[in-house]
């Protein structure tokens, strides 16, 4: 036992050489390094409410609901597992994993991000089509290619049954079908 004592005391001296290794956190910041995935941050002006993130999330944290003329996109981040599938799925790159990890709270409701995006409605019958932003994004992407006439692009603002009915009576669309 006494040999053990001597070796332990030698180890204590070695430890003393290390000095004090304690971080002064939380009184001094200690940010994460590299590609650390913290709390998801949503760039609300880029979200088009497509729901790709809701489809990809393994914890079903993201939900979409159409109520009263708005699409409510809700991120209930209490359950989030920080896998970044939503970031990878988003076509607009609106979601990014911020480096924030200091997310302690007394109520899980503090971790909810909700976006209300205006819905677009069919020009003819008024049925809801999706978000206005999604509509505008598709329209601008198609008009940039220059291959589609403006009327066709405007024709996107109709629900499918109305589009079919319109196609039977619009000359330019009939031409496409004929060709």
């Amino acid at each position, binding site marked *: *036992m006494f040999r*053990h*004592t001597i070796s*332990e*005391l030698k*180890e*204590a001296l070695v*430890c*003393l050489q*290390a*000095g*004090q*290794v*304690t971080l002064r956190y939380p009184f001094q910041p200690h940010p994460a390094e590299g590609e650390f995935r913290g709390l998801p941050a949503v760039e609300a002006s880029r979200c088009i409410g497509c729901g790709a993130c809701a489809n990809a999330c393994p914890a079903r944290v993201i939900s979409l609901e159409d109520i009263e003329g708005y699409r409510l996109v809700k991120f209930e981040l209490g359950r989030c597992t920080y896998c970044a599938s939503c970031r990878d799925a988003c076509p607009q790159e609106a979601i990014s994993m911020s480096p924030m990890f200091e997310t302690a709270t007394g109520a899980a409701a503090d971790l909810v991000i909700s976006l209300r995006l205006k819905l677009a409605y069919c020009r003819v019958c008024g049925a809801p089509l999706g978000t206005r932003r999604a509509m505008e994004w598709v329209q601008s992407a198609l008009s940039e290619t220059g291959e589609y006439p403006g009327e066709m692009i405007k024709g996107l603002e109709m629900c499918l049954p109305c589009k079919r009915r319109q196609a039977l009576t619009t000359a330019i669309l009939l031409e496409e079908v004929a060709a």
Partner: protein
Amino acid sequence: MTLDKLGLHIFSTLVFPGFFFTAMVGLFLTWVDRKVTAVVQSRMGPPWFQPYADIGKLLGKQMLIPRGSRRVGFLLAPLIALAGSTLAAVIVFQALFDPAASFVGDIIVLVYLAALPPIALIIAGAASRSPFGAIGAGREMSMVLAYEVGFVLAITIVLIKTGSLRFSELSAYQAAHGPLLFSLSGLIALVVALFCAQAKLGYLPFDISEADTELIGGPLAEYSGSGLALFKLAVAMTFFHLPAFLVILFMGPIEPNLFSMAGFLIKLAILLFLIIIVKSTHARLRLDQALHLFWGKLAILALAGVFLALIGW
């Protein structure tokens, strides 16, 4: 006994140098223990008021009494521990501050008063209706039988050399013949007494009965609130008066002048430092290893010391 003498005794037992003084300084010394342990482990330790906050918090918590436990034993055990520590501290510090009050045999009184906290631990373990308490009480009984042997043999060496049973005559002997530490048998006695002090305090490597990770606190497993606070206070007070007792026994005469008092503090600091360093660098011994150590090597060493004391070394 007149009323003012009674009042003086009550004051000396409860305030100075009794319960209040020993408790405050003992808690401060447990902070020193935690701070030195932290330095050995390369980290910051707790702030200086930590032990006081711990005891205050424990006193403010609800004390749960397990259903089916023996209430009398369960509730009396912390009080017995505290009473034992307080009275032992009074006797030890009377030797420092008021040598004229020591009586024949006060060392023996001290030995059995200092044995009260471990007995209280055994009562606590047996009274709480818990298998951890039962095992802890059994282990504590074995440990008491082990270390009291060495402790009493060390004191026997002192008695043989000084030929008296009073604290005041110890100081006179050491003033005449030099500290007991400087003789071979005195040195052996101090080493044996240090081992026994480490076991009496219940510190690593001898904290077998209260093993946190094995026995969930052993006898203390079912205590919460005030009961736990009183047990921790008793250990803190023992951490103060037991090394002080060893300093008075072995390390030289204590005179009531400033220089001698400063020397006492330095010697106390050295002994405390030894106890703390051993505590923070060792792993826990098994019960059979500890019994082999106390009844084997240390008992033989102490008997050799007694023999050396008898022949005058």
